[in-house]
């Protein structure tokens, strides 16, 4: 490996090993160092060190003056960064309303909770607010009746609470796994948006529990801010801004072999439809690393790209670049379609997803906009949002197939997947691979690996889970097996 040789060579010249490794890792070769400017080397290591290294290597260009210069520049930059950081801290947008997680309970609700508490039960908030609402609807004001109602509710609630030691995990897994045999395998058209294909059914569900980085059909549902959501024109404008437009979409591109050039004929009609101007095209040509110096505007709507060396291969490489040149749009979003929603004006559906960029856009309602990419939600909005997204995606996948599964089971799966602050997959790379028990892991997958690892680390299997206790042949610690009392009859 070249890196190795570089390190050795540097060390032979008396450079510290650590520095040598850093430089080699940065891809700098010995020859480079001999000619390099101090500033370039100082990008990787402190300027003093860089100066030292260059001297050792025998770089003749570098002088003490350079060192001073570089040091000064560095300090300036540091100052700038510090300033920016401070500004970032202060800049809090007061206009954004932070949603409250729990609403303050009303007086009515507080009273109901109080009555429940007197009977020794902390009623769930959903029950309390339901009760308050229904009592209000029925215009019940008598305290006696209210107490009677709460008493009955408490009775029922006591009956319905889960038993301690219940194996809720297994019940959840079965409740989800059993109906999954009835799911379809195919990709379907999304209800409401016939133009888009969306993975549904079993493959989608597996995708969710696998916590894949990107779903096979990423999709966004972008809601618009109140001022434009009923304006079709504005919505269309936004959709076009979001949708990636490549040069191919708005122009006829010809390859002229005899002149060794690519002729781009912009189509005004298409450009108008996509709201692209010639300037936009020029702008993106300018920005392109390969094309920025090689294009010329020949006519009003004709742009020609010359090839640097006259080879056919090169020509076609260029053709590909030209064709796929992004004119505008947001990275990752292939298509955007406008639909009228039932209650929220126009909504933009997109193929492809880029939550961070979309949320930043003007005219987007960030509160309602969503994506089906769970990991993106995790990265942009955090773990709790990811958890909610898992629940929502799973529920909608199941109910779309006409299967009813209690939400508690799905919540449990989602909570398990997000328990340690990261989205973990169900399977050997996720939860199952991170169990403490050696036997449980060995029984699941990659048996030999786990046993061998356990040997060298001297792992201890605490025998607290289910699989490992079954393996050693003793009662499991769930359900009736969790009870540690023994009845001793009186003599």
């Amino acid at each position, binding site marked *: 490996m070249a890196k*190795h040789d570089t390190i050795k060579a540097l060390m032979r010249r008396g450079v510290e090993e650590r520095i040598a490794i850093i430089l080699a890792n940065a891809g700098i070769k010995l020859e480079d160092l001999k000619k390099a400017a101090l500033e370039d080397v100082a990008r990787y290591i402190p300027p003093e060190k860089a100066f030292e290294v260059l001297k050792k290597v025998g770089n003749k260009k570098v002088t003490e003056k350079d060192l001073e210069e570089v040091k000064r520049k560095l300090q300036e930059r540091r100052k700038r960064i510090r300033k920016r950081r401070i500004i970032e801290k202060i800049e809090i947008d007061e206009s954004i309303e932070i949603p409250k997680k729990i609403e303050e309970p009303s007086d009515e609700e507080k009273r109901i909770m109080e009555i429940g508490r007197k009977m020794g039960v902390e009623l769930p908030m959903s*029950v309390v607010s339901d009760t308050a609402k229904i009592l209000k609807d029925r215009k019940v004001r008598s305290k006696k009746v209210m107490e009677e109602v709460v008493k009955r509710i408490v009775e029922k609630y006591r009956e319905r609470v*889960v038993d301690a030691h219940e194996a809720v*995990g297994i019940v959840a897994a079965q409740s989800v796994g*059993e109906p999954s045999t009835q799911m379809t395998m195919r990709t379907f058209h999304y209800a409401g948006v016939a133009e888009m294909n969306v993975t549904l059914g*079993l493959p989608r569900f597996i995708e969710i529990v696998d916590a894949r980085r990107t779903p096979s059909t990423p999709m966004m549902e972008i809601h618009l801010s109140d001022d434009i959501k009923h304006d079709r024109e504005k919505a269309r404008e936004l959709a076009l801004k979001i949708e990636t437009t490549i040069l191919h979409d708005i122009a006829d591109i010809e390859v002229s072999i005899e002149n060794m050039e690519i002729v781009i004929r912009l189509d005004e009609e298409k450009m108008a439809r996509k709201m692209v101007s010639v300037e936009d095209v020029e702008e993106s040509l300018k920005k392109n690393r390969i094309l920025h110096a090689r294009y010329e505007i020949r006519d009003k709507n004709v742009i020609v790209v010359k090839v640097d060396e006259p080879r056919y291969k090169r020509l076609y490489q260029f053709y590909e670049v030209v064709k796929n040149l992004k004119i505008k749009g947001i990275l990752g979003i292939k298509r955007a379609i406008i639909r009228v929603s039932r209650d929220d004006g126009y909504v933009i559906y997109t193929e492809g997803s880029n939550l961070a960029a979309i949320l930043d856009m003007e005219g987007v309602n960030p509160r309602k906009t969503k994506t089906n990419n769970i990991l993106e939600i995790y990265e942009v909005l955090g773990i709790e949002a990811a958890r909610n997204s898992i629940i929502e995606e799973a529920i909608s996948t199941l109910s779309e197939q006409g299967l009813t599964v209690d939400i508690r*089971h799905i919540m449990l799966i989602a909570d398990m997947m997000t328990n340690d602050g990261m989205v973990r997959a169900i399977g050997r790379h996720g939860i199952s691979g*991170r169990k403490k028990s050696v036997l449980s892991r060995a029984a699941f997958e990659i048996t030999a690996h786990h046993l061998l690892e356990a040997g060298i680390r001297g792992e201890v299997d605490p025998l607290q889970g289910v699989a490992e206790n079954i393996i050693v042949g003793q009662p499991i610690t769930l359900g009736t097996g969790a009870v540690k009392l023994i009845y001793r009859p009186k003599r």
Partner: protein
Amino acid sequence: MMQTTSKRIKEIQFAFLSPDEIRKMSAAKIITPDTYDEDGYPIDGGLMDTRLGVIEPGLRCKTCGGRVDTCPGHFGHIDLAMPVIHVGYVKLIKRLLTATCKNCGRILLTDEEIEAMKAEMEEKKSMWTTPLDEEIFIKEKLKDTVMRMVCPHCGAEQGRITLDKPTTFREDGYKLTPKDIRERLEKIPDDDLPLLGLNPKVMRPEWLILTVLPVPPVTVRPSITLETGERSEDDLTHKLVDIIRINQRLRENRDSGAPQLIIEDLWDLLQYHVTTYFDNQTSGIPPARHRSGRPLKTLVQRLKGKEGRFRSNLSGKRVNFSSRTVISPDPLLSINEVGVPEACARELTVPIRVTPNNIDTLREIVKRGPTPKDEDGKYVPGVNYVIMHDGRRIRVTEKNAEIVAENLQVGYIVERQVMDGDIALFNRQPSLHRMSMMAHRVRVMPYRTFRLNLAVCPPYNADFDGDEMNLHIVQSEEARVEAKILMEVQNHILSPRFGGPVIGAIHDHITGLFFLTYGDKRFTKDEVVYIFSKIDKPIPPPDIENKYWSGKWLFSAALPEGLNMEFKSSICENCDECLKEKCPIDAYVIIRDGKLVAGTIDARAVGAFKGKIVDKIARDYGPEVAAEFLDFVTRLGIGAIMVRGFTTGIDDEDIPEEAKRRIEEVIREAYKKVDELVAAYREGTLDQLPGRSLEETLEVEVMKVLGMARDEAGRIASKYLGLENSAVIMAKSGARGSMLNLSQMAGSIGQQSVRGERIKRGYFKRTLPHFRRGDLGAQAKGFVKSSYKSGLSPTEYFFHSMGGREGLVDTAVRTSRSGYMQRRLINALEDLRVKHDGSVRNAEDIVIQLKYGEDGVDPSRSVGGKNIDVVDIVEEVLRRKEVAGVGKA
């Protein structure tokens, strides 16, 4: 015998065997590759040495003196002439070599770095939940050591270690022998081991290079004798023979000073054999094969995978006291019962401990022998075995029954054959949910099949087209109690999946109840007596003219008192405005105080998965009442259907010529529209859908037109199929089939699809040679205009088969995929349990949820997922108040 012990294994410590330990635990040093002598006796110092245990009856183990059944087997060992690498640890060895100094053995980090890493590890340790976290941390920290060319401790220059898979290490291109590697690993000080991911308390790195090989006891690798008298050895024995043979040759060659080249070859060969002895699927080397060409099953293969030791012998076990046979229906059994054929019952036993209280009865039972029958020739439980104090079993036969009975003592265990009322577990695979294994009460019956009530088919997903099921007899008192309380069928009427019933009326039950309750049917005394002849309940008094019974009145007999309900039944047509009790089709069910006032009873009322009445009764009146209700109602349904008689045939799908003409017309119309669309597409005048290509637009439009045509055809057909039609009754009441099925039989089958598109595969630009190239019309792309009744044309039949085949493939793929997903889900969630504080925690006591499901409510006790039905409670309380005269405030 069943003694509950409070002793538990608390934990299991894993560690690494040192060469010394291997030698210390060895009962014999194995030196010869031969196994048996001419007489078939194990050779001393051979792989079958009797010091390693015995597998043949008659021989005694030289180590413990035990016989086949008492000697557990003992390990031996082979001293390897030259050290070899353990394949499982190749990666680890590589890390150790690259991360430590070749000269002084220290880790290639400076003292400060070591201190920092140690401190960081100490700090983070408490946050690591699994060894994986530590592994990731160490990998990250050691990443740079590859680059370290000089040891910070002794200043020695380091070489570059490369690994030639699977087991050859090189340094700067020169081969490192296992001996060299071992010497280097020996130098690594204990203090540095934790930083490399090793635990110095349980291992030394040099042990990763094997110098001595443990030989598993013969009991682990038994040889089998074929009928021909030939011996067939276990795969492990074969492999060990290879190892010993090469080991011997290597030693001889080394001792006689053979050329280095030969020694190296033999050494490599030994390495190969030891490698495959551990894992015969190591990538990069050919697997060792049996003479027949079958790859050998060596150590890793024994443990790994579905058929491996872990999944097939440790996580799951074969059991006694179980039986399996075909199932068949018996509507006269209770849902809590299972019919067990006599042949099974004679084999399945329940252990009963003899006590002073029951000794006389047990003597009587034992006296009967193993095959008693009563005067009518009916089954009576006998006894198969009696187990004495010392655990010996006496087989009870006709001859010795009297004597055994005489000698019965308190403390003996009598294995009595099952009889009516015993608890058994009944199971059908695949066991996808807990309702796949439920406790039933045994009813011994003649013939050879297990019998079960039809209402329990849905949770088992059973039918009677040849399904088999398993039955287990519970052996301990503790288990019996648990089975009865937790697993009995009636306790599983409500599913935890969605908080509704999974047990309920199906098929003919529903049709029967429909006949019974639809409209104002009346039944004569004869009919009612016939219906009730199989029901163990009093016949209610006649309610019409003192001599007739109305169907609704008869059904009311099954309802518990005080039941009040209102809901829409399956036959409801979802009119815009519901007329409730005045419903013209009697689809609005009203039950007041346990009496069916109006409405038709069908799938919505009592069906499995949907039955609202079943749901309500199971929830409000308890499982016993629900079970009784189901038993009653299913028999009522069967009685009713038998009184009327019920059949369906292909003539149920007969529709008049007029209708056929109209369907033909509709389809012709659709064809025309399709042709127009195709023409428009060809001319380019087709309006492109946004975001779709022209082809896709055409497909979407054509599918739309044809779909509508099919629906219209179905609508026309079903207009002529009224509620007097058996097939329609089944579809509407939810007993079986759907209106879509019917319209496909009578009207038109419709578009066939593969991958959700019209059929397009086949020949060049056409699906079949019957069509022109490029034909985009309806029929050329898989539209089936015929009905199942009229029969399909050859091309239609072919397209239909294509669609059908895709369905079959889909099902096959789906079962395996969803099976694996469920396995993963179970594995991930199996340790979760609810604690007394209502939180959900895993095996390590980490909180997963602070309150189960955010409200702590058990889904199987919820009302279709809702925790508390507040509306009902408020109504109830208000009603009571009104009655009491308090009134609203």
